[in-house]
């Protein structure tokens, strides 16, 4: 199918242009204008992304909506965009989350509104760029550039320890990506001067360099995912970030790492992936079990959800390195569903934080008496987080566990413990925060959610249930691509 309109460029640059327009509104006197421009920009960003789904040809695993122009000849770098069944759903997720984040910060952010809103729009465009790039340098530029707005968001609007968290976030991710850059340069030279990712897929590489490249990629992506043991930046960043920042971080930025594994590690270094699959699976299982236990002990709600993110993303990497269709598709569903669920969980905590300015579980109790509607929503998302059947959280986890069962019973066994731990830490937190007697006069004074919050949470609740009950539209688009990827990965490139 031919599609000549530069749709992907529009999806990337429209939010960025709107972001710049929002910056241009200047100081807080024009705050309301900044809010509206960003809302319009983010919704337009979502609307222009819809043709990506409707015109997507799910019968092919090849790249679609391709745009290719020479960017700079000196190193044969091109502005090369395209999507397949792996990147398309992630772009849609990103475009979907951005308006929610803008609305979530609507009344809460009162200082430097234009910078806050603008940063999210610019980041949304940059992240679309990461998912759509088919040139390694273009990818790298978007990848690194996404750090800048997030760094500022955490650092300017974050909590008390924000500076530490922002710098830790930046340096951690930079460490991984710099090594990835060297891997790209190495591939550029061995491929005879190409930065095209698709060329790298075809390149045959001996095992030792493959392993080194795999490790370089692993550092970049593992930090982003984040995998155990390089996950320690995440709880800090989440706790200190403003609600919108946490949502984007969990829902979008973590997916960059997962996407990287599928786009780079598996197809470029398939032999190394097979060779090191056991190690990756073990690391993922540690993340699932050990981090699940850590989450149980948290007293800070945001930290608890952050650790639960690490555990859930452990499922994603586990699914990838099972190297079968159930595993990879399940991991993809898990990524999308985690985007909705973790986003919703952070929004729920944000709702409470905006009212009481505390994230400590101990400060709450009996919230259901004062905020029954909120409690119902929170219940749904908590259940989804625990992987209740009928919610999106279940679909991905179930598929991955099935995939694991095909490989090794004990992998599946350990992975399945997450259903217990997940239920334990999420529901225990829910019980302590929502049920019981009203804990303090502050809780006594709580008001139930506003219309704005109601709309936000409703949209997310519908998404969570929809994927939980009927995941077919999602699995359909990625099916062919995943099959092709698996065939590709099973062929040795030595």
């Amino acid at each position, binding site marked *: 199918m031919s599609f000549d309109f530069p749709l992907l460029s529009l999806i990337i640059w429209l939010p960025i242009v709107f972001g710049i327009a929002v910056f241009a509104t200047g100081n807080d006197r024009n705050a309301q204008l900044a809010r509206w421009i960003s809302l319009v920009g983010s919704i337009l960003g979502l609307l222009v992304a819809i043709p990506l789904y409707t015109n997507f040809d799910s019968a092919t695993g090849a790249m679609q909506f391709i745009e290719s122009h020479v960017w700079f000849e000196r190193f044969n770098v091109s502005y090369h965009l395209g999507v397949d069944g792996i990147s398309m759903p992630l772009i849609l997720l990103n475009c979907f989350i951005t308006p929610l984040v803008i609305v979530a910060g609507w009344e809460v952010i009162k200082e430097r509104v234009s910078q806050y809103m603008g940063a999210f729009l610019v980041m949304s465009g940059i992240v679309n760029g990461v998912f759509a790039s088919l040139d390694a340098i273009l990818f790298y*530029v978007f990848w*690194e550039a996404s750090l800048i707005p997030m760094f500022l968001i955490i650092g300017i609007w974050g909590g008390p320890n924000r500076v530490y968290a922002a*710098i830790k976030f930046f340096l951690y991710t930079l460490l991984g990506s*710099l090594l990835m850059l*060297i891997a790209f*340069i190495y591939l*550029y*030279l061995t491929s005879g001067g190409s930065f095209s990712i698709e060329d790298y897929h075809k390149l045959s590489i001996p095992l030792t360099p493959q392993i080194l490249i795999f490790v370089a990629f692993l550092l970049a992506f593992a930090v982003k995912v984040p995998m155990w043991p390089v996950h320690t930046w995440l709880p800090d960043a989440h706790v200190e970030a403003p609600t919108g920042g946490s949502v984007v971080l969990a829902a979008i930025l973590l997916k960059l790492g997962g996407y990287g594994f599928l786009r780079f590690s598996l197809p470029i270094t398939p032999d190394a992936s097979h060779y090191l699959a056991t190690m990756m699976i073990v690391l993922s299982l540690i993340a699932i079990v050990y981090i699940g236990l850590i989450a149980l002990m948290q007293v800070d709600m945001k930290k608890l959800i952050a650790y639960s993110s690490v555990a859930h993303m452990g499922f994603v990497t586990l699914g990838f390195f099972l190297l079968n269709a159930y595993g990879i598709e399940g991991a993809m569903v898990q990524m999308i569903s985690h985007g909705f669920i973790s986003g919703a969980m952070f929004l729920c905590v944000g709702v409470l934080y905006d009212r009481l300015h505390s994230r400590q579980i101990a400060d709450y109790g009996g919230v259901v008496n004062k905020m029954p509607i909120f409690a119902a929503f929170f219940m749904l998302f908590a259940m989804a987080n625990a992987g209740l059947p009928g919610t999106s959280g279940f679909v991905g986890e179930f598929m991955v566990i099935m995939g694991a069962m095909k490989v090794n019973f004990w992998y599946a066994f350990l992975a399945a413990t997450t259903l217990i731990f997940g239920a334990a830490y999420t529901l225990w937190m829910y019980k302590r925060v929502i049920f019981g007697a009203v804990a303090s006069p502050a809780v006594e004074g709580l008001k139930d959610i506003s219309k704005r919050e109601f709309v936000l949470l409703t949209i997310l609740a519908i998404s969570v249930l929809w994927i939980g009950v009927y995941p077919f539209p999602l699995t359909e688009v990625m099916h062919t691509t995943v099959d092709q990827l698996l065939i590709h990965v099973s062929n040795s490139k030595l």
Partner: protein
Amino acid sequence: MNFIPPDFTPASSEIFMLIMVCVVMLADLTAGDSRRYVAYLLTQTTLLGCALLTFISFSTEITHTFNGMYVDDAMADILKLMVYGTVSAVLVYSHSYISDRGMLKGEFFSLILFATLGMMVMISASHFLTLYIGLELLSLSLYALVALRRESLVATEAAMKFFVLGALASGFLLYGMSMVYGATGTLHVSQLAQIIQSEASSKEVLVVGLVFIVAGISFKLSAAPFHMWAPDVYQGAPTAITLFIGSAPKLAAFGFVMRLLVEGMGEMSADWQGMLIILAVMSMAVGNIAAIAQTNIKRMLAYSTISHMGFLLLGFISADSNGYSSALFYVIAYVLMTLGTFAMVMLLCRSGFEAENINDFKGLSKRNSWYAFIALLLMLSLAGIPPMIGFYAKLSVLQAVVNAGYVWLAVVAVLFSLIGAFYYLRIIKLMYFDEPETDEPITPNSDVRILLSANGFAVLAFGIFPQALMGLSLYAIQNSM
């Protein structure tokens, strides 16, 4: 006996510059204190005139003149055009700073022009003596410029240090050159290459000479372990002069290294590669680690320079045109970033107040969000974060290093630039995350305002469209070798 006059045309811009320096001096003398702008305008005109002369005479041919002591090629022309532009920007940035501090004397302009002339000679020299003359003309003018504020104790001390260490470095260089002369019997760069190639000379003497030459070069580039002068001089000199020392001379130093090591002793690249690797790694280590501990912004930027010079040297290690053009691109990017960064520091200075401490950047985004944004671009570029130009500079150098087979060196380089990212981020942190300590408004003149904004945007624009400068660098190198 017949006297055949040499062909003056390849050196026309240098000759024009020399005449104009005298004109500026005399004009300033007659104009007096009240009409100092005469000298300023004349200086800018001179630079423009030189640029026109260089531009008109631009050709891809390599022309030698003065018995082969002087050369005019594409690289020389391009570097010189960059030098004019840089010096001109330095003058715009520093004008109000030096006039606020009573340094707006005629000497300032003539010294700057003499230094520029020295750089031009360095860039175009193809004989060890011409190289040395150019270098000394530059260095002596710089020593005097540092000491321009003679009542300031720190400035005088810095000038003294600069002079003593600079003289030592010149001594090293001369000693090395004399050994090379002893081994080969020539001081002509092009003949030298032939003699070394024919292996008619004593290798041992040559290598010892090379060691001294490389040491001398490292002094001038402020590469570790010959970097000691840089932090003191950067800190002690008036900021306007630091801006000058930190920017244009790096372009000249690049030309100097190209003439000496590449054109003259390129056949010995196997010998100097090893030395440069050590220098580069040490510079990146010392520069990046020491910069973390600095609280003085100028000192921090001095260490940042040291680390950048280490990165620059990496470009030479591959010893091919790919690497040299990467190094050239790096130095151009570096000069662009340094100009903007020191201009930012001067922007924070007011009459009677020197912005010296990194804390002076505190809360800049609340004081003036536009300049904070420009500084953000500059800092990210220095840290090598895309889409700023600093990233592409690092990319092209790393590419050359990996191409030469030194993957481990590339890994070392990125690890040190990771350390380096921290102190640039700290400036961003101060600007964006902290509260301002003063609410003094920032009101630069309109020329500074425009130029600084353009400078900041150039860092971004050349990052989004890097082909222009990368292509130019490759073109310059390929047409000169």
